[in-house]
């Protein structure tokens, strides 16, 4: 990892409208958690439903998308990546540095608020907050890796990433049982199932399998992104 690349990346990420959008969404999540706590009281099923549907299924993938594409996408788009590529830093190292920023960023903006929302709604009972926080954590890291790879491979990473997040994980996941075994959401929810003591969340994937798949995806995507960056060509538009 290279400290300068890390520094430049996180400053670019936090320096603009992207950061405001992310902050706004995190704040809204917390606001909703508070609203629910006030209107519903403490109801663990509600907590699980809410965090499952809003945080893990929507917020985390979207944040992973915004941050994962945001750490390298704009640079490739306007061509300024050449400055980085012409420095004596190995391409995998560049990717690793950017991945670090993306993972930490997504965790901070998505996973931590999820955990806090869980605390707000259910306190520490049943380790629900912890369970969902952990799920959001691994999902954040996984999505960061996936979307970072997509950004290196195609200039339309955002659209393809959205298609993946919405169609694969969302639509298909509900209709096609097999698809669920290959869903980052399900892998992370298996973690929740394992951690929380209440029987509120069930995942279609066993913890061991999920763990392995997560590790494979995270490491594999990051490694492959490094390889693809080696052969990156800056073509014209579209």
């Amino acid at each position: 990892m290279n400290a300068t690349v890390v520094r430049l990346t996180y400053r670019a990420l936090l320096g603009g409208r992207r950061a405001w959008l992310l902050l706004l969404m995190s704040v809204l999540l917390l606001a909703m958690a508070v609203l629910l706590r006030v209107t519903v009281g403490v109801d663990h099923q509600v907590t699980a439903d809410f965090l499952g549907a809003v945080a893990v299924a929507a917020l985390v993938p979207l944040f992973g998308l915004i941050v994962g594409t945001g750490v390298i996408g704009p640079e490739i788009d306007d061509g300024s990546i050449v400055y980085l590529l012409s420095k004596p830093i190995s391409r995998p190292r560049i990717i690793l540095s950017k991945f670090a920023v993306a993972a930490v960023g997504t965790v901070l903006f998505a996973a931590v608020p999820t955990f806090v929302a869980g605390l707000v709604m259910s306190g520490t009972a049943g380790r629900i907050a912890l369970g969902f926080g952990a799920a959001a954590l691994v999902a954040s890291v996984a999505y960061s890796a996936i979307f970072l790879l997509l950004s290196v491979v195609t200039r339309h990473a955002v659209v393809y990433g959205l298609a993946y997040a919405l169609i694969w994980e969302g639509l298909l996941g509900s209709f096609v049982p097999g698809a669920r075994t290959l869903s980052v959401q399900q892998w992370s929810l298996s973690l929740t199932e394992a951690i929380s003591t209440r029987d509120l969340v069930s995942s279609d994937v066993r913890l061991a399998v999920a763990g392995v798949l997560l590790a494979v995806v995270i490491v594999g995507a990051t490694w492959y992104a490094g390889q693809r960056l080696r052969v990156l060509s800056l073509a014209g538009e579209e």
Partner: protein
Amino acid sequence: MTDSPAGVIHDIGYRKYDGPRLGRGRVTRALYAHSLRGAYGLGRSARAKVLPMLLLGVMCIPAFVIAVIANVASGVTTELVLPYSRYVVVTQGILTIFVAAQAPASLSRDLRFKTVPLYFSRPLERSDYVLAKFGALTTALFLLIAAPLLIMYIGALLAELPAGRETGDLLLALLGAVIFSAVFAGVGLVIASLTARRGFGVAAIITVFALSFAAVSALQGIIRYEVDDPTLAGWLGLLSPITLADGFQTWVLDASSSAVAPPPGATGGVVFVLVTFAVIGACWALLNLRYRKVAVS
């Protein structure tokens, strides 16, 4: 190119243009047509066509299925499996992707390459530009919604369902489609106009639409069923473009609601209508404001 065929240029010479010069109205229409075609990738590279056409296809597939079912099972069913007006809410993901991809494609290009001053140094006013772009994307979305509805309608007619009823339902649904299109297009364009980076525009639009819908639905579900407060749940529908337009449709066109909780009562309905128009108007105003600043770069 100092050996450029000066002889050729002298031979033909420069011709003055004495033909008609169309006014603002026609020019705006030309920009509208250009943007509408661009929304479906026509007139651009082949790659630009892939996504919109794919989305159009995916949008129509369920409609085909429904039409086929209506014909095959015409002995058993007396109506379409899915009402016309609910189709748009069920397929909202596709609409969202379309807006997210095409709103930035429409605006961000001109912003990024700073082509905007070239437009405004012509007899085109800022409001004309906004009107053309807003109108074009609204129309594009309307076509996206109307196509599958027409397919279902034809299927219904072929299955000899009551023509009068089906036509009535279709027309109401098309009216609702106009509102959906305008709201989606407006919100999408406002977000897109804030950034010259197309990728970020796409992500921001999706986030606003998808997240707001996921959040509002979840909250509505919880509040309606677990707290048993359908009124509050209904009001929450104002907070996401999808549920807002659906609420409008439910109340004004007496459509069947697809949201978790419909607008609460008559007051709710009226408020939904007012807010819908206010949102469309606000988007219009914001876009005009945005382009007032942009041209002076």
